[in-house]
């Protein structure tokens, strides 16, 4: 069965620090990969996605993620975080060919950025 692991449940950083949130998945087939973000009091929204091509994908607000197929990983990075990046981040994996039915979400990582 598919599963998604996010390495940290809580991360606390100071402004300008670099961020890397780990995500590993288990699925042997072809996948689409996503990071979603939920800012306090707001709904979940798509941050970035990978479905083919360049394994380094760039999303909104300076975030990027790298798909490493051999490691089944899709880690999220940002070189310099801001206080406004305080949010909960979810990694998600969708198995291609299942009509979008099998998107599995990780448990989430709550990021707090100190001003």
């Amino acid at each position, binding site marked *: 069965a598919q599963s998604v692991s996010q390495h940290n449940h809580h991360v606390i950083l100071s402004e300008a620090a670099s961020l890397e949130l780990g995500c590993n998945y288990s699925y042997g087939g072809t996948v689409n990969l996503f990071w*979603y973000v939920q800012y306090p009091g707001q709904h979940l929204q*798509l941050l970035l996605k990978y479905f083919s091509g360049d394994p380094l994908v760039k999303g909104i607000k300076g975030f990027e993620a790298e798909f490493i197929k051999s490691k089944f990983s899709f880690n999220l990075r940002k070189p310099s975080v801001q206080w406004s990046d305080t949010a909960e981040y979810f990694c998600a994996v969708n198995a291609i060919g299942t009509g979008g039915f099998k998107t599995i979400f990780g448990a989430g990582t709550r990021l707090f950025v100190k001003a």
Partner: protein
Amino acid sequence: DVKVTQSSRYLVKRTGEKVFLECVQDMDHENMFWYRQDPGLGLRLIYFSYDVKMKEKGDIPEGYSVSREKKERFSLILESASTNQTSMYLCASSSPDRESYGYTFGSGTRLTVV
């Protein structure tokens, strides 16, 4: 932009009540989903629907049912609410021919069962 609207932001219900959570999307998406979100557990799929009147169980369907009479509307029903169903409920929609586009989520309904 796709909009997914959930009818209530906050609900408080009593144990044993029948609860209806409504979700409407405006982009003619075939797929609709109900998740519950709990701290440390992420999002867990309750039910999904890929067409009108079609429904499939997700990972945690016990205690829930769904209804999809129209393409744009997907309702989640708690037949007899219990305290362990206190949670944030999220509705989402997607298009199966654009799997790579991800989901669009509603704002969520925070349900408290007392």
